[in-house]
């Protein structure tokens, strides 16, 4: 266990390991996305009230779910960076932020598109939507704060504190529809008991969620590889890689 953690902290080892991982995870992600999108958009039945417009769920929900989960990845990397002072944790935190921001933006954008015909408004300041907007700004805040520092160790420390404080927003987003009166509907997928979404629509949705998780991992790994290459551009092992290529 400890040897793996020590290896993860070593840039050359990470670079080789992540390269091998991306090589099979990327095709898997593309396959999952294609099958999930085809199943969800063409095979799954229309909804009894919304007709076909509900199909945006196959983009909206996976993006939102992974945006929330991705925040914990970023905050956990921040905590590791603060406590153990591991450079690779800084890289992980910085790499996860723009991916999370993109996913949050997708969730907000698709939600607005769905909200206009369904609710009758593009945007409503209800608890779920507002807290999701806050998540978007938190992600962007981490990116901006990191870039504002010349000294990347100090930048990582400031970003780690910001992302740790921001974790309080995640349970608020998740429970906002239950705690307050909101326009956004409560969760359809339930961990306990029967889901409020028919299984013929649920299975492609779960597939799309799995696909978005893989997409997140691939995007973060690629971001991290770019950052590792940049940080170690002067070091011997990169020179060797370049010569071999």
């Amino acid at each position: 266990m400890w040897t793996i953690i020590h290896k993860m902290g070593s840039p050359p080892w990470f670079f080789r390991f992540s390269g091998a991982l991306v090589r099979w995870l990327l095709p898997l992600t593309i396959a999952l996305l294609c099958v999930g999108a085809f199943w969800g958009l063409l095979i799954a039945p229309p909804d009894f009230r919304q007709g076909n417009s509900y199909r945006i769920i196959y983009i909206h929900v996976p993006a939102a779910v992974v945006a929330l989960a991705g925040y914990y990845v970023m905050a956990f990397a921040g905590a590791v960076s603060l406590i153990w002072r591991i450079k690779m944790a800084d890289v992980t935190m910085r790499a996860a932020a723009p991916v999370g921001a993109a996913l949050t933006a997708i969730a907000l954008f698709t939600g607005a598109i769905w909200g206009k015909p369904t609710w009758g408004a593009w945007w409503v300041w209800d608890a779920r939507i507002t807290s999701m907007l806050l998540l978007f700004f938190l992600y962007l805040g981490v990116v901006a704060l990191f870039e504002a520092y010349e000294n990347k160790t100090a930048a990582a420390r400031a970003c780690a504190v910001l992302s740790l404080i921001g974790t309080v927003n995640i349970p608020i987003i998740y429970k906002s529809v239950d705690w307050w009166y909101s326009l956004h509907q409560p969760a359809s997928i339930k961990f306990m008991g029967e889901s409020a979404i028919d299984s013929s629509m649920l299975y492609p949705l779960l597939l799309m969620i799995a696909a978005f998780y893989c997409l997140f991992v691939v995007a973060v790994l690629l971001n991290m590889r770019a950052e590792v290459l940049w940080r170690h551009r002067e070091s011997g092992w990169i020179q060797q890689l370049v010569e071999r290529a």
Partner: protein
Amino acid sequence: MHPARKQRLMLVSLVVVLSSAAIGLVAFALRDNINLFYPPADVVAGKAPIDRSIRLGGMVVEGSIERSDTDLDTTFWVTDYEASVAVRYSGILPDLFAEGEGVVVEGMLDKGGALNATQVLAKHDENYMPPEVAAALEGKSGPVQTPQSL
């Protein structure tokens, strides 16, 4: 664990716990403002302000929608199964607006306790199912109508 790391771990945990507690207290103090709408029971009990625009949320009472023959005026009742409030609205209603479905309306209360709405939003619930399943649940027979919107 190294003592310095242990101390930093404690510090990190403290930051998370304290900031969560602080934001939790703020959210608790502002809970009335975070709610998007008033339920009809609160409006009937006089908890909603009458001199400014409010939002009212609930279910449209079955059989309560009355549409004008000459213009877009619509009246209906909104209920939370404890109390009901009458709503007057003039304009285009969203696709999902229907009797027995959720709705959030914005507008001012008049002296008689009715709401003059400036905006009507349909509130969708968390249930998703194919039309065949919905028809089966309602115990209907015969051909299934697929919604044609969008």
